[in-house]
């Protein structure tokens, strides 16, 4: 059964009991079928706002990302009580069963009944690029319901998760004491994505030393990207006022960059739609399947098959 996106968009804009439900359903549609993003944009209209500021939060398991998000939500709610804040929390799917336990909410439950906070948990679902597009869809719905700031929390361990963090205006990489020595900081990956390196668990032994090591490591880095370092304790909620000032000073991406990203999203949606159709056709059309087998045996070039797929586009809808 397919509900029209227009109906859901209309309901989600309301203020009654069904608004949350409709927004949540829109998020499900765009997560499950991210290629429908253009359809959503048409339904929502060009003047629909996007979140003012998108913050990426990444870091190794156990770095304290969810507790940090909880404290950051609290600080934003204190400072701007009239504003809505969104959270997109991504946890890994099992590569074996495809299932997932999404547990980031446990640390944010004090905000559960706050109508100004909308938290959505997503499983990574092992998608190539699809996760990023799904997250963009959820972000658009967050904009539709008037979220001012949206936090995206991801496990900073895989390429797709790092890509998700890059969707943000500002990426914060969380480090905490006791997670390895200074050589870890030299390794490629995490530290390079961060605009702000956040040393979490400042209340614990070793935080100051880690702070010094990070500052030292940043001095070694060449290039122009300016990264700053912040020291916070999420459990004691210290250091957040200063961190928020720094986030707000940093601000959103340049409008031009955002526009380029918007066009990139549509390109991704079109590629995703095409990919899905091609998969169905290769599976269901005997002539295409036979051609696939000939190419696999080395008997034919793939180019003719590509030509064939691009030429006639009357595919069954997904």
């Amino acid at each position, binding site marked *: 059964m397919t509900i029209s996106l227009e109906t859901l968009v209309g309901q989600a804009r309301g203020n009654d009991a069904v608004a949350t439900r409709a927004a949540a359903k829109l*998020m499900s549609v765009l997560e499950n079928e991210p290629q429908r993003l253009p359809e959503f944009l048409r339904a929502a209209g060009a003047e629909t706002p996007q979140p003012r500021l998108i913050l990426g939060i990444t870091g190794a398991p156990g770095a304290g990302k969810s507790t940090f998000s909880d404290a950051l939500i609290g600080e934003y709610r204190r400072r701007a009580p009239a504003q809505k804040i969104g959270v997109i929390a991504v946890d890994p799917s099992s590569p074996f069963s495809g*299932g997932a336990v999404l547990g980031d909410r446990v640390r944010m*439950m004090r905000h559960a009944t706050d109508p100004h906070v909308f*938290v959505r948990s997503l499983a990574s679902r092992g998608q190539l690029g699809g996760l990023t597009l799904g997250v963009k869809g959820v972000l658009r719905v967050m904009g539709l319901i008037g979220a001012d700031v949206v936090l995206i929390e991801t496990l900073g361990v895989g390429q797709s998760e790092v890509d998700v963090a890059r969707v943000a205006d500002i990426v914060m990489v969380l480090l905490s004491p006791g997670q390895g020595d200074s050589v870890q900081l030299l390794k490629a990956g995490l530290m390079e994505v961060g605009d702000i390196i956040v040393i979490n668990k400042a209340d614990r032994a070793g935080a100051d030393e880690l702070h010094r090591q990070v500052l030292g490591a940043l001095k070694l880095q060449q290039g122009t990207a300016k990264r700053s370092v912040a020291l916070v304790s999420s459990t004691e909620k210290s250091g957040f006022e200063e961190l928020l000032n720094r986030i707000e000073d940093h601000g959103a991406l340049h409008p031009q960059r955002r526009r380029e990203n918007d066009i990139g999203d549509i390109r991704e949606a079109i590629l995703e739609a095409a990919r899905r159709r091609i998969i169905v056709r290769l599976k269901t059309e005997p002539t295409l399947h036979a051609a696939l087998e000939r190419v696999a045996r080395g008997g034919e070039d793939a180019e003719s098959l590509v030509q064939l797929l691009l030429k006639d586009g009357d595919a069954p809808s*997904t």
Partner: protein
Amino acid sequence: MHASSPHRILIGKAGLDGHDRGAKYVAHILRDAGLEVIYTGIRRTPEELVAVALQEDVAAIGISLLSGAHFTVVSRVIELLKENDATDILVFLGGIVPESDIPRLREMGVACVFGPGISARVIVETLLDAIEKTPHSSL
């Protein structure tokens, strides 16, 4: 692969008892069965459980209860689901629920009750069957 996106299920504990082994066990077996579980942890209120269920667009809410408060918790959860036009979200229970209370709970709208010793396979099959049979407004 998206023709069948995984069902999303909320698992949480309501009331004051803090024994979450059962809830975690069920979260684990649902994950292994390919479902996506939103886990909320212990000592949740009905208001919190329903608020999370709505935002997460789940197909079902699983509540683990060992405290004997099942009538109080369930009636409030179902009331809140009605208020929010969300009665297509299933409610199921796990934990310690006396056999004699089950008919009344089912009458109130509880889809299934899983007591101690029940097998993982039965939980998954019963739950999936109940979800399939629910007229769903989800897409």
